[in-house]
C-alpha cells in the first residue's frame, strides 16, 4: 500500500492532463499533444489505482484488459473513416455499459446499507448508463444501416415512453427509501435498457449528430455519477468534462437545425412523406445533364464551391472530391468546400472525411464564413447533401425544416446537384426546392463515379 496522499497527487495530475488535453484540442496545431496528454493521464490514473487498491483477482483483470484492449485497438485501426459515426456510437455504448455495471456491482456489494444520497446518485447513474448503452446500440445499428434509418413510430409511443421512463424513476425512488430491494434494482435496470431503445429508435438518421452528442453527454454524466458513489474526484472531473462536451455539441447541433432538444428527442422528425416526388418531377421541370456536359461548365468557372453531405460519405466520394478540387485548381478555378454544421451523421463528420482525402483544412469553410460568397460564385456542386441546401427552410412556413439555417447554394449563378437517381426524397423525407430551382441542373449517378468522370473530362479539356 502506498501513502494515500501520493495516490491523490497522481489523480490531480491526471485531472490536470485531462483538462489541458481539451484546451489543446481547440486547434489543429496542438491537438495531437492534447490526445497524448490525455492518454498519459489515463495511464497514470490506472497505475495509481492499482497501487492504491492492490490486485485482487488479477488474472481476471488482466484477461479483461487484454480482451478489451485488443478489441479496441482492432476497431481503431480497421475502421474506415466513413464509419467513424458508428464507431463513436458503439464506444458510447461501451463507456455507458462500463459505468452502469460498476454501479450495479457497487449496489450488490453494499446493499442494503447504502445512504440516501449515495443511493440517489447511484440510481441516476445506473439509469443513465443503461439507457445510453441500448440507445447507443440502436444508434449504431441505424448508422450501420442494419436497421432502417427512418424513425420508427408506433401508436401510443409517447404514452409507452412515459410509462417506461416513469417506471424506472419510480423504482429509483422506492430504492432510495429501501436500498435492500434487489428485485427493484433489476426492474429499474431493465426499464432503463428498454427506454434507451424506445428513445433512439424513434429518431431519424438525419438527427443522429444531435443524438450522438446527447449520448456522449449521458455517458460522461454517468461516469461522474460513479465518482460521487465511490467518492473519487478524478472520475467526477473527467465525467463532468465529457458531460459538458456532449452538451455543447448537442446544443450547437440543435441550433444549426433551429430545433429544440425536445423536438429532436420526441418529435419523430423525418417521418413526413408529403408529396409524391415522381409527379413533381414532371410539373416542376427538373433539368438534368450528364457529367460530360457538366465538366466544361466547371472548367470555365472562376469560382466553385463544393457542398458535401452524408451522400458523399455513403458513396465514399471524398477522394474523388479532392481530385476534382485539384483538377479545377490546375485550370485556375478557385475551389472551396462549404461545411454545414449538421452535414453528415456526427459533428465534424465532413471535415474528417475531407481531411482523410488530404484536402487542406483552410479550404473547409464554415457556414457563417462562406454564406456571403455564394452570390459571387459561378458554380456550386452539391455532393449528396439535401436538407442543408433546401431553400424551403428560408420561406416555406409549412416545411418541417422551416427556420433551419442553410447554405445559400441557391444564390449561386449555377448549381449542379449530384444525386443517385431521379425522384425520391432526401433522407429526411422532405421535398427539396433546390431540385427545380431555375439555376439548378441535376447530374444523376453514383457520386464517386460522376465526380471521377468530371475530373477525367476536365483534365482532357
Amino acid at each position, binding site marked *: 500500500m502506498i501513502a494515500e496522499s501520493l495516490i491523490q497527487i497522481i489523480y490531480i495530475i491526471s485531472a490536470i492532463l485531462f483538462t489541458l488535453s481539451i484546451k489543446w484540442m481547440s486547434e489543429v496545431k496542438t491537438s495531437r499533444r492534447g490526445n497524448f496528454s490525455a492518454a498519459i493521464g489515463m495511464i497514470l490514473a490506472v497505475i495509481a489505482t492499482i497501487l492504491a487498491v492492490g490486485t485482487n483477482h488479477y488474472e481476471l483483470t488482466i484477461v479483461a484488459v487484454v480482451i478489451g484492449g485488443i478489441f479496441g485497438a482492432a476497431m481503431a485501426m480497421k475502421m474506415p473513416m466513413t464509419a467513424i459515426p458508428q464507431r463513436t456510437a458503439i464506444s458510447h455504448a461501451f463507456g455507458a455499459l462500463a459505468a452502469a455495471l460498476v454501479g450495479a456491482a457497487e449496489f450488490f456489494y453494499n446493499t442494503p446499507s447504502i445512504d440516501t444520497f449515495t443511493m440517489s446518485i447511484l440510481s441516476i447513474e445506473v439509469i443513465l448508463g443503461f439507457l445510453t448503452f441500448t440507445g447507443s446500440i440502436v444508434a449504431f445499428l441505424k448508422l450501420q444501416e442494419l436497421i432502417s434509418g427512418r424513425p420508427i413510430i408506433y401508436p401510443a409511443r409517447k404514452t409507452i415512453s412515459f410509462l417506461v421512463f416513469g417506471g424506472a424513476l419510480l423504482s429509483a425512488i422506492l430504492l432510495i427509501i429501501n436500498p435492500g430491494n434487489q428485485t427493484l434494482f433489476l426492474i429499474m435496470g431493465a426499464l432503463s435498457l428498454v427506454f434507451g431503445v424506445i428513445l433512439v429508435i424513434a429518431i431519424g438518421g438525419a438527427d443522429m449528430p444531435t443524438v450522438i452528442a446527447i449520448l456522449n453527454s449521458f455517458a460522461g454524466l454517468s461516469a461522474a455519477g460513479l465518482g460521487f458513489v465511490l467518492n473519487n474526484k478524478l472520475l467526477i472531473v473527467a465525467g463532468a468534462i465529457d458531460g459538458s462536451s456532449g452538451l455543447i455539441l448537442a446544443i450547437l447541433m440543435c441550433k444549426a437545425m433551429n430545433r429544440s432538444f425536445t423536438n429532436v428527442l420526441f418529435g419523430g422528425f423525418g417521418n413526413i412523406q408529403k408529396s409524391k416526388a415522381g409527379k413533381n418531377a414532371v410539373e416542376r421541370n427538373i433539368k438534368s445533364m450528364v457529367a460530360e456536359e457538366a465538366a466544361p461548365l466547371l472548367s470555365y468557372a472562376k469560382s466553385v464551391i463544393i457542398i458535401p453531405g452524408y451522400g458523399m460519405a455513403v458513396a465514399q466520394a471524398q477522394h474523388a472530391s479532392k481530385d476534382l478540387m485539384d483538377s479545377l485548381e490546375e485550370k485556375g478555378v478557385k475551389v472551396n468546400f462549404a461545411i454545414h454544421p449538421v452535414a453528415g451523421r456526427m459533428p465534424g463528420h465532413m471535415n474528417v472525411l475531407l481531411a482523410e482525402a*488530404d484536402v487542406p483544412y483552410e479550404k473547409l469553410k464554415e457556414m457563417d464564413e462562406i454564406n456571403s460568397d455564394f452570390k459571387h460564385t459561378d458554380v456550386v456542386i452539391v455532393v449528396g447533401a439535401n436538407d442543408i441546401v433546401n431553400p424551403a427552410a428560408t420561406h416555406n412556413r409549412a416545411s418541417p425544416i422551416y427556420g433551419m439555417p442553410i447554405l445559400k447554394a441557391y444564390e449561386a449563378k449555377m448549381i449542379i446537384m449530384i444525386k443517385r437517381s431521379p425522384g425520391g426524397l432526401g433522407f429526411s423525407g422532405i421535398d427539396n426546392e433546390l431540385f427545380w430551382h431555375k439555376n439548378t441542373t441535376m447530374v444523376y449517378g453514383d457520386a464517386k463515379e460522376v465526380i471521377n468522370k468530371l475530373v477525367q473530362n476536365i483534365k482532357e479539356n
Partner: protein
Amino acid sequence: MIESTSADIITNIMIFALASLLGLELIKHVSRLLHTPLMSLTNAISSVAIVAALIVMSYANTTLTITLAAVAIACAATNAIGGFMITERILKMFRKDGKK
C-alpha cells in the same frame, strides 16, 4: 457499507460544478473542424471509469460482483485503448498544406 459524509458530498458537488463550467468554457473554443476528434477524445477520457471498475474489483467477493466488474473493465479498456488510438488516427489526417 457506503457512507458519504456531508463534507465529502459538498466538496464533490463543488468539484463537479467547477469541472463542468471549465469544460463548457474550454469546449466552446474548440474549432468545428475538430468536433469529431473532440468527441472521440472525450469518449476516451470518460473511460476513466476503468478506475472505478478496478476499485470495485479489489473488494468484489461474489461471482456476481466479480463478473460485473470484469465486464466493466473490458468495456472501459476497449474505449481507453481504442479511443486514444482512433483520435490519433483522425488527427494525423489534418494537415495544413494537404501533403503527406
